[in-house]
């Protein structure tokens, strides 16, 4: 009980010291726990996220797609836990490489952030930050329907995916090779007959923590199975495809033959019909012609008959006419003759009547009359003959004409039929030709398909795991980065805290030497005495740890994590109190603090109690080395001489103070240094190395410089367009795949936009012997000029590139090539990008349809600037903690300094030194120590900064390790400020020093 009371009294008596102990422990614990914890919190948070969203362990894609058989085979593996098939399709939309996925049910689940999940086939969701809800996305690919059912999709929600946690989405097989957007639609919307990918989760993998070795081990069982299964399924698939294709060919051929047979009969029938129709027409014509001929014959014979009759008639007539003429009757016409004859008859008749019938005259006249009547009868007969001849002629003519008409009509009908038949024939001929063509095509197709099958390559499975996801690996790297920084800073803090505690405790025990002596002489056990000090220290330690851990576990991880939320799309941090780390910290703190205390107290037990009761004989002063250099020593004022002598009197304190001050200075400088170098690389990269303002992404790739585009650019006052082929390639180091940009230029002189220089600032020019690669690539692959490196594109195509130069670079990795070298190492060049120096006019250019997109350097800088700005959190954290540490250390050291020299100070007061002189008496030492501490600290800070930045470098970034002179000044100002603050505090303490103390006996 007494012991506790004693400890309590000690705390009360030395409250300032007690509080500073708490502070030191708290700072050390907070920083150690916080920074240490951050990376494990980060990994745990992500692991939980991965498990929640069922992030895949493996992804299989095949060069020929995957089938239900594959799916079942995978499901049947012993170590597969979940298996799900999916579709994906990459296309360019508005110049952006876009990947479209089906929405999965079990693996790689997406998390809805706003809006709804798609319900209809024309709806989609997107990763946050690309499209807005309500936007319509139209697939530009004309052949979209071989992949998708719909062409336009409405954005109904935004999502997050654990597959895409990094703002840099990775590489793509379309456009410039950089994946820009990811879209999710319902699986049913895909029109692909095979699965493009299958996802797997290994058995028990989720109970392991991602990134850790036991996770790797757990999934390795499934990996082995997959590697065994792959060739089997590949072969199966190959056979299946081949069989299917062959079957198709056979079917096609059969079909073709059938069609051919069917159609040929049809065509033959048609042909026959056409022929018989022709025959009919021909017969018709023949008939008509025969008609005509018969008619003609008839006409000739009839006309002959008519002529004969006419001739006979005319002969008879002529004979009669001669009789008639003998009678003196004109014979001009039969009717006249008849009339004249009749007139004669009439007159004779009249005469006769008058004549005696028996007279001669009568007989004469009667004879004449009889002649006349015979003539008349004959003439009448002839006349009738003529009349009937004429009637016959007329009848004939009518018959003839009617027959001709009929014949002509029939002919016209036949002509029409012929025309119809002719067109039918033509049609038939055409149809037949096209049928023949079709058959030939079909045959050709079958032949082609057969050839294709003959050349069919075996499908190949590609197995990807989480390590192939750049977001996944980059995150680990970031977390590890914090860990390595964590390894440096907290050790620093703990070391300083340890030293401070040691210092404080030894001082305290020195002060209480007599008390220890009294206790010992009173027979109180050593254990109890030690315990009273240990309790004092541990009380401070425990309070410090509690404060420190609660700050360390809550504030620091969040501050650090915020930095990463700028580059990663990840859930908010979950902080876990890591019990083992907690226990380690508590153990380490309690153990070291106790040991320090026990050591300091136990030192005194070696002496007899009587010795302890006597005052500690003052340490003998001695001269310092400087005094031997008389000509300097002489010139130093008395008070400075005293200071110098004092300085060297307490060597332990000097070292402590120097370590404390220099440590804090180094930490501060590192804080500023980190900030400097990060902000500096932006300027260097974009103002000194890559000086172009923009990249115009061409709508269609060009094989050569396009005059039309050049003219257009000239019209818009854009000069010196640099035609470039830009693509993203990757290279592999021992365990990582790293992306780089490969640029090949139409011109060999690219100095307008790129200032490539080597380490020694010699400028590098493009040659046709090889490519210029950036420093980091050379470092990572450990290659130098003349060596070759192997690059892969997203189709796993391999290219070998020879290094002709290594250029300075800070952000990202680049490979620069001349056109000729590109064509040598890769393929024929096509330009997809034009590099220029414009920073606006975007709309004008985009409206031209030559360009699909414009990337402004300024935008890049802004984006990086955001990340850099958030890095300031880390810097402020370091600066804040270092400042606290600096103040605590300075305060602690100064109070110890004062307490050690309390008697001296009281004496000086009695001797009449005023407050200022007394303060200066103490300050002079602090000032010297602070100056030296700062100098050492700055030097140490340069090294620490270098180390921290080296550790913090990623595969894409090289930091400048130089520190701005302003940062030195800031550090200096802060340290001086703290020194002044602490001196002000101590001046109050000094004022309180009681002169009466000088009269007391020496304790």
């Amino acid at each position, binding site marked *: 009980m007494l012991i506790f009371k004693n400890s309590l009294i000690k705390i009360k008596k030395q409250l300032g010291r007690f509080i500073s102990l708490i502070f030191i422990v708290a700072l050390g614990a907070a920083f150690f726990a916080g920074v240490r914890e951050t990376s494990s919190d980060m990994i745990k948070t992500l692991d939980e996220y991965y498990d929640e969203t069922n992030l895949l362990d493996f992804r299989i894609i095949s060069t020929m797609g995957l089938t239900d058989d594959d799916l079942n085979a995978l499901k049947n593996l012993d170590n597969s836990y979940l298996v799900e098939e999916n579709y994906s399709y990459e296309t360019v939309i508005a110049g952006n490489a876009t990947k479209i996925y089906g929405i999965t049910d079990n693996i790689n689940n997406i998390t809805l952030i706003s809006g709804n999940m798609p319900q209809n086939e024309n709806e989609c969701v997107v990763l946050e930050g690309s499209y807005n809800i309500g936007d319509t996305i139209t697939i530009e690919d004309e052949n979209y329907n071989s992949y998708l059912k719909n062409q336009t999709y409405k954005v109904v929600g935004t999502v997050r995916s654990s597959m895409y946690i990094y703002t840099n989405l990775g590489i793509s097989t379309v456009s410039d090779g950089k994946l820009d957007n990811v879209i999710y639609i319902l699986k049913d919307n895909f029109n692909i007959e095979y699965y493009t990918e299958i996802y797997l989760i290994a058995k028990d993998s989720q109970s392991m923590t991602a990134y850790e070795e036991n996770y790797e081990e757990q999934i390795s069982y499934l990996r082995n199975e997959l590697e065994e299964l792959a060739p089997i399924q590949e072969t199966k698939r190959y056979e299946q495809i081949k069989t299917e294709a062959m079957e198709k060919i056979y079917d096609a051929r059969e079909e073709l033959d059938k069609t051919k047979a069917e159609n040929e009969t049809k065509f033959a029938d048609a042909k026959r019909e056409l022929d018989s129709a022709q025959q009919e027409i021909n017969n018709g014509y023949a008939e008509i012609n025969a008609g005509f001929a018969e008619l003609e014959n008839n006409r000739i014979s009839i006309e002959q008959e008519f002529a004969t009759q006419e001739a006979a008639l005319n002969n008879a007539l002529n004979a009669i006419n001669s009789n008639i003429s003998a009678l003196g009757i004109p014979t001009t016409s039969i009717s006249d003759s008849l009339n004249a004859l009749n007139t004669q008859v009439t007159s004779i008749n009249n005469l006769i009547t008058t004549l005696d019938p028996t007279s001669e005259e009568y007989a004469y006249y009667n004879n004449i009359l009889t002649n006349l009547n015979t003539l008349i009868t004959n003439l009448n007969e002839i006349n009738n003959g003529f009349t009937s001849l004429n009637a016959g002629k007329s009848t004939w003519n009518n018959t003839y004409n009617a027959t001709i008409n009929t014949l002509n009509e029939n002919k016209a009908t036949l002509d029409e039929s012929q025309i119809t038949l002719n067109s039918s024939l033509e049609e038939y001929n055409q149809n037949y030709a096209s049928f023949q063509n079709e058959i030939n095509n079909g045959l050709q197709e079958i032949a082609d398909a057969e050839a294709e099958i003959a050349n069919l390559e075996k499908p190949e499975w590609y197995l990807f795991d989480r390590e192939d996801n750049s977001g996944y690996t980059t995150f680990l790297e970031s977390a590890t980065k914090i860990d390595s920084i964590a390894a440096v800073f907290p050790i620093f803090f703990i070391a300083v805290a340890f030293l401070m505690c040691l210092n404080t405790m030894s001082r305290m025990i020195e002060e209480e030497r007599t008390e220890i002596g009294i206790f010992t002489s009173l027979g109180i056990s050593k254990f109890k005495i030690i315990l009273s000090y240990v309790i004092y220290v541990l009380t401070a330690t425990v309070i410090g740890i509690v404060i420190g851990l609660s700050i360390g576990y809550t504030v620091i991880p969040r501050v650090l994590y915020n930095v990463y939320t700028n580059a990663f799309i990840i859930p908010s941090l979950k902080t876990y109190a890591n019990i083992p780390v907690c226990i380690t910290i508590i153990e380490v703190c309690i153990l070291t603090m106790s040991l320090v205390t026990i050591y300091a107290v136990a030192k005194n037990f070696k002496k007899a109690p009587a010795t302890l009761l006597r005052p500690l*004989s003052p340490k003998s*002063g001695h001269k310092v080395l400087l005094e031997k250099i008389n000509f300097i020593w002489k010139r130093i004022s*008395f008070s400075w001489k*005293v200071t110098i002598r004092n300085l060297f*009197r307490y060597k332990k304190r000097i070292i402590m103070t120097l370590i404390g001050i220099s440590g804090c200075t180094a930490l501060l400088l590192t804080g500023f240094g980190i900030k400097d170098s990060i902000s500096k690389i932006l300027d260097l990269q974009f103002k000194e190395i890559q000086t172009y303002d923009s990249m115009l992404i061409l709508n269609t790739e060009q094989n050569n410089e396009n005059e039309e585009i050049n003219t257009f650019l000239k019209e818009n006052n854009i000069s010196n367009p640099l035609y470039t082929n830009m693509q993203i390639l990757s290279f592999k180091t021992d365990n990582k795949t790293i992306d780089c940009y490969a640029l090949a230029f139409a011109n060999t002189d690219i100095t307008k936009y790129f200032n490539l220089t080597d380490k020694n600032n010699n400028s590098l020019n493009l040659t046709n012997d090889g490519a210029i690669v950036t420093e980091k690539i050379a470092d990572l692959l450990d290659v130098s000029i003349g060596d070759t490196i192997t690059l892969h594109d997203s189709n796993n195509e391999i290219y070998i590139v020879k290094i002709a130069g290594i250029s300075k670079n800070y952000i990202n990795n680049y490979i620069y090539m001349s056109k000729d070298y590109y064509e040598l190492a890769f393929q024929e060049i096509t330009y997809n990008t034009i590099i220029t120096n414009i920073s606006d006019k975007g709309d004008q250019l985009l409206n031209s349809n030559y360009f699909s997109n414009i990337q402004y350097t300024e935008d890049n800088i802004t984006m990086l600037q955001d990340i850099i700005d958030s890095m300031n959190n880390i810097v402020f954290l370091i600066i804040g903690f270092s400042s606290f540490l600096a103040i605590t250390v300075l305060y602690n050291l100064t109070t110890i300094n004062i307490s050690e020299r309390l008697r*001296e100070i009281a004496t000086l007061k*009695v*001797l*009449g030194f005023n407050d200022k002189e007394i303060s200066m008496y103490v300050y002079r030492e602090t000032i010297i120590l602070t100056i030296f501490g700062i100098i050492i600290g700055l030097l140490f800070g340069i090294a620490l900064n270098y180390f921290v930045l080296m550790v913090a470098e990623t595969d894409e970034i090289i930091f400048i390790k130089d520190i701005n002179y302003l940062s030195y000044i800031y550090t200096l100002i802060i340290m001086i400020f703290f020194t002044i603050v602490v001196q002000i505090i101590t001046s109050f303490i000094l004022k309180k020093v009681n002169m009466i103390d000088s009269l007391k006996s020496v304790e």
Partner: protein
Amino acid sequence: MAFIEVKKLSKIYQMGEVSIKAIENVSFSIAEGELVVILGPSGAGKTTILNILGGMDSPTSGTIIIDGTDISKFNSKELTKYRRYDIGFVFQFYNLVGNLTALENVSLANQICKNPRDSKETLVSVGLGDRLEHFPAQLSGGEQQRVSIARALAKNPKILLCDEPTGALDSKTGKMIIKLLQDTCHKTKTTTIIITHNAIIAQIADKVIKVKNGTIESIEKNANPKPVEEIDW
């Protein structure tokens, strides 16, 4: 008017509700150049008198006139000045600065005075001419006290205040110190006040002020102070 005139001096310490009268109604006077011993047992109030005389504390009431100036109402700045220019203090435990040599310890006090004595000469005068460059730890108690005296004297003070100067010393050395103080007082005519509980030392004083329970018991003038050699420890 005497060189030092103390009138009705009282000092009351307020300890919460209780007030402790350390000294009450103390009056005495000391002439210039006088060697005075303030004698009394522990707790009699002699240290309080010393503190007030030495400018380290102010009285609750009463006046102290030193060479015509009343220091009882001095503020801390004026008191510092008073200590600086008018007082030489000799501590019971010497209070030397450990890492300064004897000479430097003297010089330390020396440098803040208006009209200091030469440090070296002062040390020679206290018999330490051959110990100038020694550090306190290398000196015996007596020698350290002599350095302390030299340090006080070098300031050329109006008053030399000695707080139990022999308290930490054996009798032989103590005698030597007392002799030094007496000789110095006579030689330099510096008013010297020795505070002690040792009645024997009182024999060498010109005046003995006896203190008891916070009040003056008696003030005796010693017509014939004994030389140090004659007193018996």
